[in-house]
């Protein structure tokens, strides 16, 4: 037997699939955003509010990844947005192959922006490139401001951090400045948007960023 040195990360084959998907989506004019957070941080709620607020400005589609249920896709389709439910069959993250299958399953997809709501988990989704053009993560106030210290990879990988449930700030021991400082220490380029999807506070800044990233992406073509 011969010894072959590899030094490859296990995600190499996925990385290639992701790169191919990213290019294909570019040629189709679909801007894909990978939305990641812990379970229950408010991904579906943020998306619902964003879709409603941006109606008439931009067409948004959603791919909901869940280990087994359908509830999130039902919530989104109730808003009139195109959505699809993907089941990961127990897998803790979405990889590029699954993202491709999701896009292909959305027939007559007319959206300019597609959000992939990843499985609720802060570890595994950060390690697998889905082929998305941007990565956005959510940290909710009840989770605590020390999350960047516990899950550094996701903070390093994300283009934007949405801090949700800011209406709950008076009830939790969450230091917004400390959370921002810790996130920026890991990733000086990360854009941070404190929002409450309940009261609408901060939503406009997040939505402006989204629209400007879409425009920037189109210009880069």
């Amino acid at each position, binding site marked *: 037997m011969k010894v072959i*040195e590899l030094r490859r990360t296990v995600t190499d084959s996925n990385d290639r699939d992701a790169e191919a998907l990213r290019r294909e989506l570019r040629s189709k004019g679909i801007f894909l955003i990978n939305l990641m957070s812990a379970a229950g941080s408010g991904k579906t709620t943020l998306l619902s509010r964003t879709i409603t607020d941006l109606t008439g400005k931009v067409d948004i589609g959603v791919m909901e990844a869940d280990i087994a249920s359908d509830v999130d896709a039902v919530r989104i389709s109730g808003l009139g947005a195109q959505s699809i439910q993907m089941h990961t069959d127990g897998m803790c993250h979405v990889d590029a192959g699954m993202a491709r299958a999701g896009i292909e399953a959305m027939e007559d997809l007319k959206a300019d922006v597609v959000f992939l709501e990843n499985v609720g988990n802060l570890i595994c989704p950060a390690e697998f490139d889905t082929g998305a053009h941007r990565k956005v993560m959510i940290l909710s106030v009840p989770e605590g401001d020390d999350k960047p*210290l516990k899950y550094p990879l996701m903070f390093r990988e994300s283009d934007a951090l949405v801090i949700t449930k800011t209406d709950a700030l008076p009830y939790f021991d969450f230091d917004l400045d400390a959370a921002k400082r810790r996130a920026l220490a890991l990733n000086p380029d990360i854009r941070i948007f404190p929002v409450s999807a309940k009261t609408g506070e901060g939503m406009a800044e997040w939505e402006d960023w989204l629209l400007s990233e879409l425009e920037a992406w189109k210009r880069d073509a």
Partner: protein
Amino acid sequence: MHELGIVEHVIRTLHDVAEENNVRRIGSVTLEVGEVSGVVMDLLTDCWNWFREKDDLVKGAELLTETIEAVTVCTACDKTYRTVDHGKTCPHCGSKETYLLRGNEFSIKQIEAELFDDPEDGEPETE
């Protein structure tokens, strides 16, 4: 089930490598696993043993691991320390503003393989 997904990705990567290197069969796979990679090795081995039987390239292949020590660096005093001993609190100055320098890696270091055009089929070979 993080481990099941990892094993699937390892095997897919091995198929790519096999194609590039004219490999007929893989005898062993050595992984480099950081102390705080979050991978549960027992589970990983179970998943491996289950998957390898379904795939001719890796049938019977042994899974070996090398551990990489986890090291954390403190942004307050710039010193480093062993993550598993002290977690996120710097033992030098007590600061919690620390980050992991290494120890969360998970990669395939090397494989032992039998090649298609290897005349000594199955014999150990040194480089």
